[in-house]
């Protein structure tokens, strides 16, 4: 199966996904209910009842779930850095043929 790409770069090389701050998360699950891409997964009976199980499903540059988070427990990578990284990886891709 061909690997998913974003702007020509393998998606797995782009570290874009939300990070949950468990100090703040109150497990309201709004983000999970909101996200149509199945990024989060609930874990009944575990200490961390919500995890970022499928970071590769997260749409690069999308922060929409963050807006549903009242306790502000979701953080995202820096957009500029991510853009720079993508640019670099694209260049590398070209060089490597």
């Amino acid at each position, binding site marked *: 199966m061909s690997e998913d790409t974003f702007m020509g770069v393998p998606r797995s090389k782009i570290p874009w996904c939300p990070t949950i701050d468990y100090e703040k998360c109150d497990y309201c699950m709004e983000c999970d209910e*909101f996200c149509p891409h199945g990024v989060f997964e609930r874990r009944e009976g575990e200490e961390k009842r919500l995890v970022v199980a499928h970071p590769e499903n997260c749409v690069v540059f*999308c922060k929409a779930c963050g*807006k*549903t988070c009242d306790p502000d427990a979701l953080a995202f990578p820096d957009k500029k850095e991510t*853009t720079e990284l993508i640019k670099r990886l694209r260049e590398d891709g070209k060089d490597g043929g």
Partner: protein
Amino acid sequence: MAKMVDNRPRENPADIVVLPCSGLDKEAGSASRELALLLSEKGAYVVCPVLYQRSPKRYEKKLAGVRLVIIDGCKTGCASKLAAERGLKIAKKTTVTEAAKTRGVKAGKKPRLGDALRNLLPALAEEILTIEPPKAPVAVGKPGAFGGPITCREFNVDKFVFRVPESGYFFNENDCWARVEGTRARVGVSDYVQQSASDMIFFEPPEIGTEVSIFDEVGSLETTKTALDIISPVSGKVVAVNREVVEAPELINQDPYERGWTAEIELTDFEGDRELLMDSPAYFDYLKQKAEREHKELYGG
């Protein structure tokens, strides 16, 4: 404490009306109330959000033709939403949790206002009072400058028909487009976005004057199904927003590529941006694959 001399132009506080959040469930709510009171002491007029919700007529006259400052406690944005529901034009918006965060202070969960946050409020009030005075409306280029008729190519996925302009548009992989004329671009969302997100009910435009980099948010949309950010395909300064779409967001559903544009941007580095964008034919191919794949996922096929 030493006071800084501030020579920035000041708005006459009497022209400022403040609509704050009055949240009582966490510290940011108390801070926004306190901030509103500070502004009131400096001459601004404060609208009570609870009373305004209950009887908007009371404030009708007070709100006409003034500069409206919104203070949201947190990102839930109740005060912003209230303003939007009543069709109020916002001159400036401050979100306490965000403003505090950029100053290294974390708003707490308990509603009582703590010293760290309280100490920030005078600076925030000063910042609000130095908003630039209203400018003349921004010229939106020559009429018809973006108005040339376009033709679209289309493809089907089952009963869905998706359209992509034949040429002249640039897209990012977040399905947002830019149509460039000279040094400006209009931006918007693609037909695919409007169909998969469903009927638009709300468009929150970016503030005019905002500097955006490629992939920054440049406004947001709410539909009957979901909410989404418009991810800018270009870098530059927002010089106009589509007021027609603010009034009638369904224009995005009806005509996503022309009348449904959302913002106009004075470009700063289009040559650089362009390297990261697809032209119309490339986006057509990209979208075709994506629509077929996502459709299968959505319907579990």
